């Protein structure tokens, strides 16, 4: 294999893995703390991308659009959490899955209603390329990787260094004890849900210039996000990062080898890992239901 091709496809895979990581971390955090599977994260992802598209066409500033997309996604997640998830935290896990799928479908329908069915392009904010090991790499992809890395560090610092983050980590271990200590867990739930929604919105906003923004974009990425979450194990941040990197690399290196099978390869890896360890790489065995 050509060295230049290899470098560029590794960078490509890393940037794709970064997007998957930003998406999957929301699902993972929500499962870890609230024990819900929040499929509506994919709605916030599309919403972030669409808001970015609108802001870019109006003002021309991509970063402003991305920031507002993140805020919009966070607001949407706040509303959904307040009015729907508040009522179903105590219920069975499949219950939250069905309800959030309903929210996702309704939201996608709403997006189709507002923005129409036609996929829209978003202009890339940076078109410059950097020379690296005899290849030209788009600078924008490197920025995506840097942002995802910063988010990982920020989440890690938040969960390990701040008192609220420590409360969330304690909640992942045992919600009832945290409640017993006099901490309002519902406020933690809301906070975690908003963080997840905002990160999904950020992922959508960052991915928008690379792909076309369409109403079905959430359903297109859904399979890969699930594979990331399942391979990494639900509820583990570290596992999510590792598996996002694996899936990103498998897709991009696989498309160099044989393009049609590249999108199938992560599925095969997922089956293999589930065969060895049914809870994913870093998933805990505690939560048997």
């Amino acid at each position, binding site marked *: 294999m050509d060295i230049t091709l290899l470098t560029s496809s590794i960078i490509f895979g890393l940037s794709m893995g970064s997007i998957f990581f930003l998406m999957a971390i929301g699902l993972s955090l929500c*499962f870890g703390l609230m024990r819900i*599977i929040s499929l509506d994260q994919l709605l916030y992802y599309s919403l972030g991308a669409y808001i970015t598209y609108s802001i870019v066409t109006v003002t021309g500033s991509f970063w402003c659009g991305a920031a507002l997309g993140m805020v919009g996604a966070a607001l949407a997640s706040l509303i959904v959490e307040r009015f*729907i998830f508040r*009522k*179903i935290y105590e219920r069975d*896990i*499949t*219950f939250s*899955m*069905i*309800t959030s*799928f*309903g*929210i*996702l*479908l*309704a*939201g*996608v*329908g*709403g997006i*189709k*209603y507002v923005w129409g069915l036609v996929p829209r392009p978003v202009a890339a904010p940076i078109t410059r390329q950097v020379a690296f090991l005899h290849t030209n790499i788009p600078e924008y992809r490197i920025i995506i990787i840097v942002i995802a890395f910063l988010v990982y560090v920020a989440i890690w610092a938040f969960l390990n260094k701040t008192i609220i983050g420590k409360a969330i980590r304690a909640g992942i271990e045992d919600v009832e004890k945290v409640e017993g200590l006099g901490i309002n867990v519902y406020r933690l739930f809301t906070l975690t849900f908003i963080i997840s929604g905002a990160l999904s919105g950020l992922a959508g906003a960052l991915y928008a210039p690379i792909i076309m923004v369409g109403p*079905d974009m959430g*359903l297109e990425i*859904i*399979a890969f996000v*699930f*594979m990331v*979450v*399942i391979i990494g194990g*639900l509820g583990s941040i570290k596992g999510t990062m590792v598996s996002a990197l694996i899936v990103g690399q498998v897709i991009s290196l696989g498309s160099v080898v044989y393009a*049609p*099978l590249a*999108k*199938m390869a992560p*599925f095969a890896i*997922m*089956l293999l890992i*589930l*065969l060895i360890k*049914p*809870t*994913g790489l870093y998933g805990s065995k505690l*939560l*048997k*239901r």
Partner: protein
Amino acid sequence: MGRLVKNWSGILVAFFLLALMRLFLPVPFATEVLIFAIYTMACNFLLGRVGLLSFGQPAYLAVGAYFTGLYLSYWGSNPYMGILAGIVGSAVFCLIVGPFFVRLRSDYFALVNLALCVIIYFLVEKVLMGITHGDEGLSFLMNMSSTPILDLGNQKDFFIFTFLVTLFVWIFCKYTDNSVYGAACMATKMNEDRMIFLGYSTFRVRWSAFVIANTMAGLAGSLYAVWFGYVSPDMSAPARAADVVVVTILGGVGTLYGPLAGSFAYIAMKDLISSLISNWELFIGLLLVFIMLAGERGIWGSLEPVIKKISLKRKMESPTKT
């Protein structure tokens, strides 16, 4: 004899209503209700009996449809053999993927199935482009030969055939419900540890239920394929993944008449609403959220207590009269 009538009276009434429906409603509508009822019964078997929630039912529907479609396009022309090919194909497919899937925890199971649904979509749309013609789909309406007794190319005969198949599937569901196997399934759903303690292999119970239910979904898929004379990757579209779960819950999970009531309500709503507004997804999503928040009992689940009350009242009254 009396006991037999008592056991099966419900079914007779239900299917009498369905046959009556044929008289007053257009044939395509009645046929779609029946096929969708089979599809929903499959989901109901999985969710209501064994407690496995799957968002990947369109995958199994598409597997059945594509086996039928491939058989009718490349090998044979007899639609009955095509349906048989669909059933056998999806049974084999489920036997292969089953052991991977049923070991998983319920949340993983739902997600893995959704991933499978997307993968099947990719597979028929891109990877197997040479055989399945990608987005264009396989069209084999002209390939089907007419058969002597029930000509499946004929809409009216096809309705009768579908009616008989639905009746058979329903009776099968009812029979399994009353058998030891049905009890084992229910027990696996309710308390897996106790089942293991009693010496049952819950893995085998789940695997067999998985195969039975998804073969039923495959059967619905091959009926769709023969009915349209056409299959396309849209059958496995992930956007449709929740529909059947919605209908199962709409009808009432774990009930026998639920799938029939649910699929009737769903197809009727779909036809009415899609003629009014194009935005069908918005409505079904909101409906799903609403049903879940309202208490997830569904149409039959809400009707059943009322019907029981009425029949109980009649029983209370009848001895005093005679």
